[in-house]
């Protein structure tokens, strides 16, 4: 009968115990319930976000006809897009530099690169405010999208270290003989970089790009300090709308933003997956 003694529970079987189930439920609830409520109430006829009265698209119509909201939305996407491209290029080059070369001041540079990740955002924001007000005033009254320059520069400066970190981690697994093989077969420095190093870095580049995009898109603090009256981004706009009242219009706009970011992330991951599986 000893053989029939109850086997100790396997790792997944612990999930059958109620404390763990409750824990998981709580985690999922606090993670997703607010989002679901936000989305649900964007379809609510009532102006108040408390009681459900009926289904409607009117808040979406209202949000889409709110020119300043649309402008903020477009601004945010534009900034995020430019910021992503610049961050990926800068971050990848910084990663290659730190990985490949030994030079005086390398360690301080590595430390300095990590600073934007560690320094509190509020400090970065104030620093950017002072910098763009005193040291490097971005000319006002520039045509769109050049008027977004200050914000974009600020965004790049805090998101490219994230890209560099991700890409550098990826580079650690690179076999230097691949590079030598390419050169041995007749490739110059540039071709070697494009044909061998970039394909290897690619998963890191995609991950870094997604990171930079979302970091830029939803940044509030630093943007708040660098934005001018004509360069409002979506998070700043939502904040200013909330100061008057919480209307379902904000819910609708937020829902659109969520859908856009989730879709972009999905596309990014899908592209990465396709690259990885490009085999017959």
């Amino acid at each position, binding site marked *: 009968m000893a053989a029939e003694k109850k086997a100790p529970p396997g790792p997944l079987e612990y999930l059958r115990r109620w404390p763990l189930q409750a824990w998981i439920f709580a985690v999922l609830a606090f993670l997703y319930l607010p989002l679901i409520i936000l989305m649900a109430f964007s379809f609510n006829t009532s102006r108040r976000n408390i009681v459900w009265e009926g289904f409607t698209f009117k808040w979406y119509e209202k949000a889409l006809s709110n020119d300043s909201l649309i402008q903020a939305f477009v601004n945010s996407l534009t900034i995020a897009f430019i910021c992503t491209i610049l961050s990926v290029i800068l971050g990848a080059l910084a990663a290659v530099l730190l990985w490949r070369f030994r030079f005086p001041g390398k360690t301080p540079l590595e430390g300095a690169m990590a600073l934007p990740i560690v320094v509190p955002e509020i400090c970065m924001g104030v620093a950017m405010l002072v910098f763009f007000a005193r040291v490097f005033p971005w000319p006002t009254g520039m045509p769109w999208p050049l008027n977004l320059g200050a914000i974009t520069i600020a965004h790049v400066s805090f998101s490219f270290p994230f890209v560099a970190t991700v890409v550098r981690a990826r580079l650690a697994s690179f076999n230097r003989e691949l590079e*030598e*093989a390419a050169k*041995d077969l007749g*490739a110059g420095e540039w071709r070697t970089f494009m044909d061998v190093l970039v394909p290897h870095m690619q998963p890191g580049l995609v991950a870094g790009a997604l990171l930079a995009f979302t970091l830029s898109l939803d940044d509030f603090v630093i943007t708040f300090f660098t934005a001018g009256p004509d360069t409002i981004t979506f998070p700043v706009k939502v904040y200013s709308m909330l100061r008057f009242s919480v209307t379902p219009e904000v819910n609708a706009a937020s829902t659109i933003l969520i859908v856009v970011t989730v879709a972009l992330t999905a596309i990014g991951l899908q592209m990465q997956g396709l690259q990885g599986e490009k085999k017959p």
Partner: protein
Amino acid sequence: MKEAPPETVDMAPVHTHADKPGVAVKPNAIIQFEGVTKRFGKVVAVDNVNLQVQEGEFFALLGPSGCGKTTLLRMLAGFDTPTEGRILIDGKDIAHLPPNKRPVNMVFQSYAVFPHMSVEDNVAYGLKMDRVPEAERKTRAAEALELVKLGGFGARMPDQLSGGQRQRVALARALVKRPRVLLLDEPLSALDAKLRDQMRSELTQLQEKVGIITFMMVTHDQDEALATATRCAVMNRGVLAQVATPADLYEFPNSRFVADFIGSVNLFEGVLTVDEPDHAVVQAPEIDGQVYLDHGVTGAKGAAVWLALRPEKIEMHKRPEGVAALKMEDAPEGANVIAGVIKDIVYLGSEDYVRSGDRGRTPHQDVPLQSHALRPRRLYVG
């Protein structure tokens, strides 16, 4: 126990690859190292190497790890530049050319097959860099794959190949450019034992097939070098110890290092007592006697020398009861005899080693002696 002098080939010689059929060795030097020295900081990796490799040779650079053989190869490929000296290929100094401008191609130790390209794209990569038209690229890549017995594998991705197949891809990729010299960096070290033997013979066959391409291989595995190469250079601490055919390396090592490094060997210290052009005698206290050699030694009389005795050149005979041990003086002409007692026999599969505790000068000191003499000499021919 009867001891034949090292040179007497009374048992089947092990390596006779000095003159392989099919490999045309032309007497013009394709690679020349002239006083090449490479220093990494204070470390001298390669020290004043002078070496000539002839066209069509299969040349092996052999040595223990850290002896500078890989550095020498990398200088030929262009990944390192010599601190001093010149490297010539076809009479042109290439020491400071970048790797992509040299008429050499390399098979890397890790194969370095590009993981994100198909087999065909890998092989055709070098041709693409040379701006060969696409149609020609395709046919030449297919030919090269056929050559390494990977025909039909062109569409595969490298992670769908085994280690041996990936190595073939690396070989095809290097050969497709028809280089003057093919460099092989420890090409067989990452394969398992059985595959290694197979690839070893395929490498020599491959060289016969491609004809005019000179092969230069780096290895720390002496069997590999002796079995594949037409000529070997043994390196030690950045210096060329000996450059010779495999048979000469084995039979006539020029230093204790080479004798010890190539094959297994019994080494005894001795003093040169007779040194004539046609024979020499060494007094070796460890084996308690004088050893007759049927060749002269370039050394002063009375010089301390090392006596190298190959295990397979030892014969063992039982001493009949009541008969006194043969003295060295009683030995038949040209043979050396010492008395000893077998203390231990180690069975090692294909090579049995007898560790006989030779009677040393002092009664309690045993001198280990490796020999194959107890191997049953039977041949099974099926």
